[in-house]
């Protein structure tokens, strides 16, 4: 390790070593699909090869209907998009959940 920090526990075990923990939070925000049906977030530097995005539901599912279902998420260079419907859906059936979008870079 040339740069970074290490911490050890009371019994001498190496717990954190910034060499082995190579991730960086790129974006971390709350969204509501009931308000914004299609969330498009521009994230400069986002590369699907070394970055990822996760949808973390923040409110419990009310039922087992589409309104509580997982949204349709896609990632592409520089952009993460979360949609309330599958793009192939022609009817109204959609989700309206609230979630935290966590985007991170996890490797070089």
């Amino acid at each position, binding site marked *: 390790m040339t740069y970074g920090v290490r911490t050890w*526990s009371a019994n001498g075990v190496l717990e954190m070593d910034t060499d*082995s923990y190579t991730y960086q939070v790129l974006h971390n925000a709350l969204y509501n699909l009931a308000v914004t049906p299609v969330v498009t977030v521009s994230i400069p530097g986002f590369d699907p090869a070394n970055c990822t995005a996760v949808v973390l539901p923040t409110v419990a599912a009310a039922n087992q209907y589409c309104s509580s279902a997982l949204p349709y998420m896609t990632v592409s260079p520089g952009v993460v998009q979360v949609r309330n419907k*599958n793009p192939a859906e022609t009817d109204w059936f959609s989700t309206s959940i609230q979630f935290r979008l966590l985007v991170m870079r996890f*490797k070089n």
Partner: protein
Amino acid sequence: MNFGLSVVNDGNYVQIDSEQPRLCALYNGTYQASGSSTAYVTFPSAITTPEPPCIFIRNTPDRPDDLYTGMTISGGPGNWTGFVLTTINIDYRPYGKWFAAVFASITKADYGLRMWDANSSVIFDSGATPVLFTKASSSWSFQGKVQINPIANGYYWRNSLTAALLADEYFMINPFSRGLLTPTHINWTPIGVRFNYSQSCLQVFGVTALGAWSNMGMPGAVFARLPGT
């Protein structure tokens, strides 16, 4: 940044600062259902964050067929008391290891490093280890359809990341904790998720009589280690 510590490693990753709090593992343990397909976990103390914690699980290789259909966090904002894991078949018995992580920290350690932000909240404590993300992928491929029973079919996808799961490595179940959108129907499609040890990948099954889109989007498969567990 006005408070905290900014750490940059050899790869130029900004790793700790007060502006982007990171996921810290607060509690961990094992879960095991005995007479049913539901396992209940209670945290040693309630997690007091406004938002629910992230739950990471490692389904045991001893029960490779069990598919996890639900993960419900118990309690409410400021008082998350545990979680419930449910598998998709009455013959399945959820069994494995877990840890819970939040975008906050708690004071646990007598040795190490502790930091506070501008509002005096603890943002880092050596006793609540920052989650060590190991790998992740948003790339999935549709594997096909199998008949589950006379009514329902199983549609299944695999994550493109092929790698063995280390003994102290887990996957985040929150992004798979509820159903998928169903083509032109109001009901969601229940899903089952598991780490498939024979194919060394994360796998998702959608079980429905209503049909499914082969393209389910790109949910994040995120793996993390809790060293020594």
